[in-house]
């Protein structure tokens, strides 16, 4: 559903608390900028970060998502459930058009991404 919803999503994966990838999808015709090993390391760091973020839940509510924005792509993580699985998405962030003002990339449509995640959770 995620890959169908947004063409700018290049890669999506779900991993468990050990950093093992349990599901993955890659857009056809697009070559990875980052190696899978490097992506696994990123996901491991994200799992640790979300575990620490759980300390803030009593103050600011549940964690919804994180975005790390680079010039070429955005890397998004979404905590999926209490057992620590996370969704990892890599989205194209290159500017789509020439602009007079400096561009800092594209907006990731997080509302839609989170609504798809919620929909899939409700179907389980």
């Amino acid at each position, binding site marked *: 559903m995620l890959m169908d919803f947004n063409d700018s999503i290049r890669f999506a994966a779900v991993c468990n608390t050990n950093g093992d990838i349990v599901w993955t999808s890659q857009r056809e015709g697009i070559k990875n900028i980052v190696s899978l090993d490097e992506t696994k390391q990123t996901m491991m760091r994200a799992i640790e970060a979300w575990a620490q973020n759980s300390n803030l839940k009593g103050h600011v509510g549940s964690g919804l998502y994180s975005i790390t*924005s680079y010039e070429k792509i955005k890397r998004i993580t979404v905590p999926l459930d209490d057992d620590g699985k996370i969704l990892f998405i890599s989205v194209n962030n290159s500017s789509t058009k020439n602009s007079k003002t400096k561009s800092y990339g594209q907006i990731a449509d997080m509302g839609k991404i989170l609504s798809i995640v919620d929909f899939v959770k409700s179907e389980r």
Partner: protein
Amino acid sequence: MSRYEKLLNMLMDFDGSIEFAAVSDTTGKILWNSARSNLKLKVPLDETKNVLKRESGDWIDRCKAEDRIGLGRALYHITSFEKTKHVTIPVDAFHLLYIVVNNEPMVKSKKKSYGRLVEMGKMMSIVDFVNTFE
């Protein structure tokens, strides 16, 4: 007034939903900070210091990765919670900007809300603008 204090003042003036802003060094130690008056911080300062320590370490990793993998420059990081968004932006090689933005929905909506949009373009342009004054 240092350019970092100027940066915090400009950010607080620009967006009323910014609750707290700080500049830390690369170890996560807070050097300057600004909190919105008449607003109680949702996260205790000790907890914020812990967050900043971790964020600083993460940014060191990201900056190392810039050279190793071809993603381009790392621009910013956002962690979104139900009530607040926490944004980090590297100001320069030695300083990290940390911003806490209110994320509670402004109006009641029939659809589920996942919070407010953060104007990262404007925040980034303020950081770039202040950096021209070095």
